[in-house]
């Protein structure tokens, strides 16, 4: 091999690191070739571009978010398996310390930013316009931009695995470890830029859904008639728009430190590393509420639907959602109680943190009271919701323990903390979003996911969860710290770690069953011909599954909360399901556009340039971004009509006229 080539492969492709990377390269190459070959063989390139990559339809964008989230869950889960395998026995050398660091970093970052976030955005996109009786979101074009920024951000992050090296400073990426002096590698740059790019997309999504919900509700749908999932999206969007700028700044300043040589967070020249920690958690704590609030929304819909009862305490549900979203801004310092900011600061943030438990408790009781004397049917969404309750309560209780500032000095960064936040983040967002996925899957694809395989997956995942994380509380008390890549034999940690690892494998098996379930159901799943497989309560179930491109042929007028359910009780649901052909008018819809995709690509190029300090590439990317924006400004004609006649034909074919 010529010296220059060898240098390239060693520096960027890391081929000198051994067979693991070679296998990964081969697998990635094979997968890519497979995808390209399949698309070419079935002549699907044009279809892919026209129907998906350029789509501004919220339903399609939602589905793309969902697919990306599931893939990322697989990647993050595989990371988790590797971590747990390494920790199963003392003095293990399954992974090197360096690789272990990289893997826990990518596990955390991917699960929060590239799994949980797209998963909630999938739900936002698929459900909100249908629930409020709209034809799309307020800014469909911006919605596509958000998706492609997320997508290319995630790509940039994942490509670090085989090109340049992964970040290895933890998902929180604290300086001074992440300053240039201690971390030369491009891995940290990958982290900073990919989060930055996808973060811009997240802010845009927050703005988009706030505007959508505030402005585009069907006539008569007052705020207090909105379904609770929509309310949870309002709360989450408020948190997004006010929290994400802090992440933007934290990442940007750290990047300036690394690229320009400023001294925000360095140890020298007056820099203050703790300021990064402060800024990071101004975003970081609200972030966990961003991902958990939509899950609360899902639980509210699921509980009401499967208990066949109106949700108990609707007003208090709304109030608690909004309270949580506001209080969540005033708790961030509990992530660094041990910094030593003093008794005043720690007391304030301890009390504020405990206060979050109050509105959350209100919500749990409301769900329980909704189930009370309901006619509960135990289908998959309901199963996950029921499993959430005890699980989340344990997580919440340990959270209150951690909120006690003096006690936190003992728990800080121990496995007790690890067990706590996995418990709240898995029981909340993961259970919630899986429940939501099962619940709205028929609406997305027109068929249900198989119940039997789903139950196996449910029990495996749940049992696995407790087996995996309960021992970790004990490990924390026994002094095991997070991010240790191995431990000596005589610490008394072996058995508990082994149990925990077994639990993780069981969870992994559970995830595989979900995959099997999806694949099986594509072919054999029960078709949803009515559009209302669960005997639903809200507007989206009055539409056929999947909903037509324009959603509502005629926008319904809303007179009640749980509109569809009320009409069912009065025997009038036909009014929503039968369209009067004369009421159908021409519909304006936004045109598809390839520009959001290209803009994401330009961001990717710019980000890639900055990662390796290849400024020519970076400038090319930024010019591309500017060009796409300016071209958009001159695009005045971005809508088209669906003629009433066409709508009538579609509705007639669906049997709704």
């Amino acid at each position, binding site marked *: 091999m010529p010296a220059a080539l060898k240098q390239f492969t060693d520096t960027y492709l890391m081929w000198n690191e051994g067979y693991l990377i070679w296998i990964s390269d081969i697998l990635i190459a094979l997968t890519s070739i497979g995808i390209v070959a399949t698309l070419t063989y079935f002549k699907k390139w044009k279809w892919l571009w026209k129907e998906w990559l350029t789509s501004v339809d919220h339903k399609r964008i939602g589905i793309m978010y969902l697919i990306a989230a599931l893939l990322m869950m697989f990647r993050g889960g595989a990371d988790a398996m590797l971590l747990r395998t390494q920790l199963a026995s003392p003095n293990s050398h399954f992974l090197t310390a360096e690789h272990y660091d990289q893997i826990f970093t990518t596990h955390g970052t991917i699960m929060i930013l590239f799994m949980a976030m797209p998963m909630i955005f999938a739900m936002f996109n698929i459900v909100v316009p249908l629930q409020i009786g709209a034809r799309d979101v*307020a800014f469909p074009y911006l919605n596509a931009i958000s998706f492609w920024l997320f997508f290319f951000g995630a790509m940039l992050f994942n490509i670090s695995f085989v090109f340049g090296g992964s970040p290895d400073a933890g998902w929180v990426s604290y300086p001074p470890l992440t300053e240039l002096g201690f971390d030369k590698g491009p891995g940290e740059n990958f982290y900073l830029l990919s989060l930055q790019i996808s973060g811009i997309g997240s802010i845009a999504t927050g703005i988009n859904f706030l505007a959508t919900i505030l*402005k585009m509700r*069907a*006539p008569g749908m007052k705020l207090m008639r909105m379904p609770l999932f929509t309310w949870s999206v309002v709360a989450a969007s408020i948190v997004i*728009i006010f929290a994400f*700028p802090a992440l933007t700044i*934290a990442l940007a*300043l750290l990047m300036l430190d690394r690229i*320009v040589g400023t001294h925000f967070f360095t140890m020298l020249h007056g820099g203050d590393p703790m300021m990064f920690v402060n*800024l990071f958690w101004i975003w970081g704590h609200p972030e966990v509420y961003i991902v958990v609030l939509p899950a609360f929304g899902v639980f509210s819909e699921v509980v009401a639907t499967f208990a066949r009862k109106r949700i108990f305490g609707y007003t208090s549900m709304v109030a608690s959602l909004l309270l949580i979203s506001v209080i969540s801004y005033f708790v961030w310092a509990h992530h660094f109680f041990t910094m030593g900011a003093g008794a005043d600061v720690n007391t304030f943030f301890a009390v504020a943190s405990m206060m979050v438990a109050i509105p959350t408790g209100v919500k749990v009781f409301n769900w329980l009271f909704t189930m009370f004397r309901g006619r509960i049917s135990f289908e998959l969404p309901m199963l996950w919701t029921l499993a959430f309750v005890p699980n989340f309560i344990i997580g919440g209780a340990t959270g209150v323990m951690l909120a006690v500032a003096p006690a936190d000095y003992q728990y800080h960064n121990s496995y007790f903390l690890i067990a706590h936040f996995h418990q709240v983040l898995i029981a909340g967002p993961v259970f919630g979003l899986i429940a939501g996925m099962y619940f709205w899957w028929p609406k997305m694809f027109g068929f249900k996911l198989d119940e039997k395989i789903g139950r196996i997956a449910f029990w495996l995942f749940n049992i696995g969860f407790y087996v995996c994380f309960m021992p970790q509380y004990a490990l924390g008390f026994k002094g095991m710290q997070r991010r240790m890549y191995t431990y000596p034999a005589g610490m008394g940690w072996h058995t508990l770690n082994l149990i925990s690892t077994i639990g993780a494998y069981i969870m992994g098996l559970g995830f595989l069953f979900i995959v099997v379930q999806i694949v099986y159901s594509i072919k054999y799943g029960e078709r949803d011909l009515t559009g209302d497989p669960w005997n639903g309560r809200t507007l989206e179930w009055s539409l056929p599954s999947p909903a037509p491109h324009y959603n509502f042929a005629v926008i319904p007028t809303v007179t009640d909360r749980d509109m569809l359910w009320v009409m069912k009780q009065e025997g009038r649901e036909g009014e929503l399901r039968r369209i009067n052909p004369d009421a159908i008018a021409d519909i304006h819809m936004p045109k598809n556009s390839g520009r959001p995709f290209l803009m994401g690509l330009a961001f990717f190029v710019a980000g890639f340039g900055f990662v390796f300090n290849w400024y020519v590439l970076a400038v090319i990317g930024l010019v591309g971004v500017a060009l796409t924006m300016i071209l958009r400004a001159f695009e005045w004609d971005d809508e088209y009509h669906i003629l009433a006649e066409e709508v009538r034909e579609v509705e007639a074919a669906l049997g709704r006229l």
Partner: protein
Amino acid sequence: MAVAHTTVAPHQHVADKPLEYQNPVQSVKILGFWIFLATDMLLFGCLFATYLVLRTHTDGGPTPHDIFDVRGFTIETFVLLTSSFTGGMSTLAMRNGNKRQLLTWLIVTIALGLTFVGFEASEFVSDALRGATMQRSAFLSAFFTLVGTHGTHVSIGIIWMIVTAIQVAKKGINPISARKVFVVNLYWHFLDVVWVFIFTVVYLSGVVM
């Protein structure tokens, strides 16, 4: 887009509303932009927080007192305040349907914006020549980043205003271009407010302390 049809109550007379709000699609975009301004406010809030925390961390290098040039930032302030006013005048001309006035005010605003950016750039250069670079100390890093982010916003605003002016020139005043003029001016006034806080928190405080 009929997607945004819903919130127009039937009894309202379209003509009662300013031009930029008459089309519901454009009206939603204005709301979206207000929300964006709220997030941008937080962005600056974090930069202000960083500056406030780090402003005493001069590491033996230049202090605020050493580098702030009263004459320079007074001129910058006056120029930007005036540009906010002329931007407002362009909104007024748009509402009166006077295309020529609208374009004139936009061009005046752009010129004032360029003047502001020019003064700021020369201020930065003269600081740097005196050894006060953003690599010198945490205070200077925070100062240049906060003020520079505002300057970048203004520069983007200038490009945006040029793009808007071209569209007005080509298409005249209608609900779409009216919305565009209104929104770019919202952005411009917002930057003026941010500047008020910059001269209060950064420059004047720096001179006083």
